[in-house]
């Protein structure tokens, strides 16, 4: 449509452009600029060139943080997608009971990370926690879920899986609605059992959705912070210091804005990379959908 006055569209978009410019684009550029300075928030910033990047790479800190974040993300995505898909297929039925259980699984996704973190901190408590106690009661060995550096990151991943599986399930349930019932019924009449129907009809049609949920969850798990802050504060011995927590530590504990900005720049570059993968997976899925 033609605008009533030629300037109208720009005026209508102005508030949105201002907020996006001020709180999204400009901060991003500012982080890039600041990453070349050393600044402790108190004295004047001094130019240091690429020193921060060189230190981050040279000390191995960057690689360690990236790998930690990646292992956390891969575990989270693998299990939340698998469980989410299984639950969607199992709970895709009529009835109040099924609706209630679906709601229960999804509710964890909208409850605050603080509540979830504290709740599991209590359940996993080494002394009085219900999990360790139950395991001990039936004679099974228990682990230091949060104080063993080899275990803590995966404990956080498991809690995250508990929290976000409902998200994957809900998206898969929406995807399942798009699969024509007639197709499944025809296959059932031809004698295909449940498993075959899933493998030959549901799964191929759902694959683009799997790609979407997988990549989205990976991007989201790269942004993890709350659960780390509540449950482990990055420890023990840095074993749960993921990307955002590392940035937070640099600013608020070490007062190193420049170093934090350099980390932010690398972090954003990684997110862009992951988004490219997502778009690629998406396009692949769309192509597949056209082909079928």
């Amino acid at each position, binding site marked *: *449509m033609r605008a009533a006055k030629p300037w109208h569209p720009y005026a*209508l978009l102005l508030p949105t452009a201002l907020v996006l410019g001020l709180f999204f684009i400009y901060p991003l550029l500012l982080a890039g600029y600041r990453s070349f300075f050393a600044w402790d928030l108190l004295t004047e910033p001094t130019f240091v060139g690429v020193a921060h990047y060189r230190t981050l790479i040279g000390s191995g800190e960057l690689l360690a943080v990236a790998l930690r974040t990646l292992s956390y993300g891969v575990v989270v995505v693998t299990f939340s997608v698998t469980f989410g898909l299984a639950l969607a297929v*199992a709970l895709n039925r009529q009835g109040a009971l099924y609706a209630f259980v679906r709601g229960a699984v999804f509710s964890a996704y909208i409850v*605050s990370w603080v509540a979830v973190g504290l*709740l599991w901190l209590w359940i996993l408590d080494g002394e*009085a926690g219900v999990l360790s106690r139950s395991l001990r009661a039936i004679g099974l060995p228990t682990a230091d879920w949060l104080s063993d550096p080899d275990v803590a990151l995966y404990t956080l991943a498991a809690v995250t899986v508990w929290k976000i599986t409902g998200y994957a399930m809900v998206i898969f349930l929406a995807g399942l609605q798009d699969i024509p019932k007639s197709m499944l019924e025809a296959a059932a009449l031809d004698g295909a059992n449940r498993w075959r129907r899933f493998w030959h009809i549901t799964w191929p049609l759902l694959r683009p959705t799997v790609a*979407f949920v997988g990549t*989205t969850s990976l991007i989201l798990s790269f942004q993890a*912070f709350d659960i780390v802050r509540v449950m482990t504060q990055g420890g023990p011995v840095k074993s749960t210091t993921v990307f955002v927590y590392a940035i937070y530590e640099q*600013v608020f504990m070490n007062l190193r804005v420049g170093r934090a900005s350099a980390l932010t720049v690398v972090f954003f570059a990684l997110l862009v990379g992951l988004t490219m993968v997502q778009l690629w997976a998406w396009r692949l899925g769309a192509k597949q959908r056209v082909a079928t």
Partner: protein
Amino acid sequence: MMGPGFSRGASRLARLASWTVLVLVALVWLGPYLWMVSTSLKTLPEIVAAPAYPLPSALNLGGYREVFEAVPVVRYLLNTLFMATAIATLQIVLALPAGYALAKLHFVGRRAAFVLVLSCLIIPAQVTFVPVFTMLGPLGLVNTMAALVLPFGVSAFGTFLVRQAMLAVPDEIIEAARLDGASELTIVYRVLGPIVQPTLAALFLFSFVFHYSDYFWPLMMTTDDRVRTLPLAVALLREQGTGVRWHIVMAGNVILSLPILALFALTQRRILRAVTARALA
């Protein structure tokens, strides 16, 4: 050969399997909630007692009383509700005109503007918090409601959703309103707003729930009780060294989660609409 008896047995087995899954799922997801509520109603001796009893001996509200004594719960809750409402409202107020321009009006740079909005989808708060914190400091905006609300005044996702909803509105409706002499703002808020109302409701709830529960941004932008929000207060219960007094922490947890779980129970469909819209977009 499969006799009728066998197949009835098989279907009974299938039903048993599906019931087992149902019970297991309910246990894994509801169990922790029940444990949270049960713990919040216990007394300290009951918590350290081994073996642990699944239920409290009586409805002890001591944990709740201690939460109210330790932190100004009402103020934190009001701060949280105000912040989440302000953000969700602002997002809708700004997304309507932007969505209208992007969906319905022809102008130079429309594609670029749309791409700009979409590209902001990949810039999360976790990327902007350091620079925004240093921007707001000199302006004296750290520790203010403005620092909590303004950065989220525009949701790129919300703008996109509203634009999609507007695309489905026939041009004739807008032309008719213009012939009646309606201004563009009247068209946006009075004519189109009610038409895309389901999208706006979904967006409002989605945004409200997210920001009510948010811990990250208020933690970075505030240190002052006057503007701090409930998730921070509940996290502080633990940090202040409650030790083994988990009933207090779980009572805080219940206070924090109950409003959002109740809201979810009432508006499940709308919230799910916004969540799945993201996937189908």
